[in-house]
């Protein structure tokens, strides 16, 4: 019990760490947008601007040995679980120094050492295997949790429903984290889900324990995520963590968001989790500038690293098909 309480009481230092983490993700994503517009990044990209608190909060509560799978919007989770910005940026540039060695790109980020079992480009596609991982932990009696990140759009897919059903039935050590950013691409929540106003109803259908949290407050997210992870880790069954967050930018870089009103987008800016935490901690201008400079240096360094990286040989395309 004592250990759990200690974990929950967040010191200012810890919160500053979170702030730095969130700011790093934010500036990283902005840099990614900038480099994309400059034509340097192949493929397409989805940034998680506005969802940093949700991601940092949950990821910080995870432990070594836990595994997770993310979605097409995966940069935040990847950085928050410890993948170096250099490795991530290099992957976006398609270099072999990238965390997936150039084979995956933005939507297929893997870092097995840090428990990252892959970002998934198929909505809901990663969930079943996180049920499987949770099953393995249970069968082997390991105190590890498999965390499945997904968005509100995924809650309508067959894989989502089958996964929750099976996880609850078999009581697998799986944590389902729904980052409800209220948009499934261009479709707002009310248009795609009959339970959009309360996503945890989804869990109810499977008799699964659910926890709801305000995703724009990293402290709250951390607390609730810790609670959820403890629950799952203990073997009490899977949990549905309903994180209410907000997507500040478009679905993908370049999305003109014709489907969203300007007021709507402005409102999103008011819910900026970084601004909220900065105000809460009353960070001085000097300290803020120091932080910005530090983060700026890291992000610029990542771009440098990536640009100087090694391109894979064309023939490398035929490697790694089979083990």
């Amino acid at each position, binding site marked *: 019990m004592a250990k759990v309480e200690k974990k929950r009481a967040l010191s200012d230092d810890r919160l500053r760490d979170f702030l730095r983490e969130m700011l790093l993700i934010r500036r990283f994503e902005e840099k990614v947008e900038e480099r994309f517009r*400059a*034509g*340097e*990044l192949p493929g397409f990209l989805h940034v998680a601007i506005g969802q940093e608190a949700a991601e940092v909060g949950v990821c910080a509560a995870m432990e070594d040995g836990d595994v997770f799978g993310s979605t097409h919007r995966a940069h935040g989770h990847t950085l928050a679980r410890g993948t170096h910005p250099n490795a991530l940026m290099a992957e976006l540039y398609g270099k072999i120094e990238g965390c997936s060695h150039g084979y995956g790109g933005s939507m297929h980020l893997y870092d097995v050492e840090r428990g990252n079992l892959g970002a998934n480009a198929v909505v809901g596609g990663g969930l079943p295997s996180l049920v499987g991982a949770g099953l393995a932990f249970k069968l082997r009696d390991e105190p590890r949790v498999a965390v499945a990140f997904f968005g509100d759009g995924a809650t309508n897919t067959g894989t989502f429903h089958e996964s929750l059903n099976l996880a609850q039935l078999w009581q697998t050590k799986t944590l389902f984290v729904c980052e409800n950013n209220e948009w499934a691409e261009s479709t707002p929540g009310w248009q795609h889900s009959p339970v959009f106003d309360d996503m945890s109803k989804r869990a109810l259908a499977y008799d699964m324990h659910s926890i709801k949290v305000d995703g724009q407050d990293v402290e709250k997210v951390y607390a609730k995520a810790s609670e959820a992870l403890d629950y799952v880790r203990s073997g009490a069954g899977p949990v549905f963590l309903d994180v209410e967050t907000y997507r500040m930018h478009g679905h993908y870089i*370049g999305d*003109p968001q014709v489907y969203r009103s300007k007021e709507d987008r402005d409102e999103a800016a008011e819910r900026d989790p970084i601004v909220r935490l900065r105000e809460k901690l009353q960070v001085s201008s000097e300290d803020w500038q120091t932080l910005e400079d530090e983060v700026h240096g890291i992000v610029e360094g990542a771009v440098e690293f990536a640009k100087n990286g090694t*391109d894979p040989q064309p023939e490398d395309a035929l490697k790694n098909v089979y083990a």
Partner: protein
Amino acid sequence: MATDVKLPRLGQGMESGTIVKWLKAEGDVVEKGEPLFEVDTDKATQEVEAEASGVLLRIEIASGEVPVGQRIALIGAPGEELAISGAPEMTGETTLAPAPAARDTEFRAAINGAREENGGRVKASPLARRMARERGIELAGLTGTGPDGRIVAEDVERASASASVAPPSPIEPPPPAPTAAPPSPPAALPVDVEAIPLTNIRRTIARRLTEAWQVPAFQLTVSVDMTHANALLERSRDLNPALRITITDLLARVCGSGLQRHPEVNVQFSDESLLRFPSANVGIAVAAPQGLVVPVIRSVERLSLAEVAAQRLQLVERARTGTLQLADLEGGTFTISNLGMFGVEQFSAVLNPPQAAILAVGATTDRPVAVEHEVRVLPMMTVTLTVDHRAVDGAPAADFLRTVKTFLEDPALAL
């Protein structure tokens, strides 16, 4: 330093956009993040924000379609001097989409290598074709027993078993118009077919003649009235019974003179230059027991007919006993191949690389010929000259051949 404003890539797949409206004018102060201009993409018209703060010093493209990455304006410090720019710069090529590796060389190699003849419209199974190729059998002459008259392996086997066309022994003079490209690996042969291992000489013949086959060559044929030549030979034999002077000897001597007259045929093509030889070293194709050999009679133009015959006798003897020296085989500039003794009327020989010409000689037979509007029966011999077109053109070759014919028809002119 002024900052370039470039047309950003607003979406994956976007190659260009149309500038619709500038929201700021030249000279205006601009804040980073402020909407700067409106652009039309194929998805929507959208505002683009300034990426830097300062004064909008110059708008280079006011409106119209612009490729992604092109500079369209400059933002800098107030009053900053700008370099005169002519055409706006393009951004350097990005790391995107590296040019696909050119497969041209592979493609060209494939189409140039595979210039195999297809046997025309003859229907035959791939196996039958290969067998026919390997055994030197013409598909066109076979009847197919497969569906739709397709020639199948069995048909080729039947043909090769019964045919006396293909010479059984390996002793052959240069074969007539070789048919195909490099041989493919052997099939599983029916039990009664013998697989004779290749000797070195056979391999060498194959290799050199394959080389020659790749040279662009043409053939010229002429028929010669051998009346006078035959008479000359008879008289020579009477004079010199021990030394049987033959047509080949006469041909060698005559060609020697011809080559002196037409030195542009006594040449060899090399990558850097055309090599022209002062003397005619004429090779005679001999069917030795171990295979085809071409011993050379050097400087034929200086020898008398008797001397040519004597040398020829010696060389052929050495060829037959396998005692030819390297010196006997080197240095040839022209070759004569005579299959007349087999009754062959006419054939084309394969060039003897690196020589530029070879004369194929047929049998002398009595033939009805039109001479001054009358039909006469004359002893005619048909010769065919094969020429390396890289080294010798048609006209000089034809000229040489005409000289040879003239010399043969009136030998006194040559000697």
